[in-house]
């Protein structure tokens, strides 16, 4: 027997050795390793899927936040405009009221002045009457002639009339 001999039992033994190795490797090596590879593939696929979901959710949240900011900005603008308009109105009202009060006070002052003047005229009139009486008494005392008396009364009356 040499290395170039074909021996039937060795042919079969070689095949059996190969089949034994195939069986053992499949059972104890390929199976767990292939399972691990499959599991890793699944895990990676799941992680990619999860990442996609998270990204879309983040996009949605960002969009919502942007909307809220825009809304708040609009509201602030509106509030500011309202406040400005209200303050303008208030200022106008105050000025109007001040003008009204001023004109009222002016009128009241004029009324009071007129009243005072009337009172003063009335008191002057009564004093003139007293003066007339007093003057008449004096005239009578001095014994006037008829011409002088007439002229004197006329003068007095004229003065009194000017006073009115």
């Amino acid at each position, binding site marked *: 027997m040499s290395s*170039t001999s*074909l021996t039937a*039992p060795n042919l079969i033994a070689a095949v059996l*050795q*190969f089949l034994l190795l195939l069986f053992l490797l499949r059972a104890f090596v390929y199976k767990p390793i292939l399972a691990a590879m499959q599991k890793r593939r699944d895990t990676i696929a799941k992680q990619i899927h999860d990442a996609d979901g998270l990204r879309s959710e983040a996009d949605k949240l960002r969009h919502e936040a942007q909307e809220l900011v825009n809304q708040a900005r609009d509201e602030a603008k509106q509030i500011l405009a309202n406040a400005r308009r209200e303050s303008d109105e208030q200022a106008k009202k105050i000025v109007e009221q001040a003008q009204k009060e001023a004109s009222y006070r002016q009128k009241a002052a004029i009324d009071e002045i007129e009243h005072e003047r009337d009172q003063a005229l009335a008191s002057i009139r009564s004093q003139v009457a007293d003066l007339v009486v007093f003057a008449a008494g004096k005239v009578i005392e001095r014994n006037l002639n008829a011409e002088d008396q007439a002229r004197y009364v006329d003068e007095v009356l004229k003065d009194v009339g000017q006073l009115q």
Partner: protein
Amino acid sequence: MNFSLTAFQWPPFWTGLISIGLVLLFGLAAARRATASVPSGAQNMMETAIETFQDLVGQMAPEALAPNLSLLALTLFLMLVVANILGLLPLPWFNGDWIHSPTAFLSIPAGLAAWMFLLIQWAGIKYKGFGGWVYGWVWKPFPVIGLVINALEQLVMPVSLAFRLFGNILAGELVLRMTTHLPHGIGGVITTFGIGTLWLVFSFVISMIQALIFTILTVAYMSIQANKDH
């Protein structure tokens, strides 16, 4: 070359067992802490090997055959690589010689090739149906004459497979041993060392290439047989 139905050669049997034992040790080291997270060391190598053969076989074989065939091809390749390289290692054998590769005995590549021949025919029957398989044998490429052509082609295939592997490995070992018989003395040491080392590197490469060729051709023949177009 002679043939015997009863004689048994022990050396290739033992070295064959050593080969599958080494492959199994490597495989178990790879699968011992098989993890679905980040793989390391032996597991990484085994995963790379599995994926490489899945790609390789996936390009040729029908889809239904590919997963099993890729594992069979990987097993065959790993066993042949270890078996081929075994004869290049400086390990002493019981008869005073250095260790021989199991594939340096014609019976072992011949047995494997014969087994692959049967597997290939089985794949033909399974994927083309028995009628389709017979039709392919007898009617292609010409009616009836096809049988002669196919018989030649199909029988030459395992024979060439066996002799190619056996011849390459045996030649590698023989030439490596011859380098130790170069002239003695200082010059002999230098030539032995230089030529021996060169030949050792060359044989290492040849060992792996032949393992790959045996595996790839088996996959190719099986894919051709299993394909409905042929």
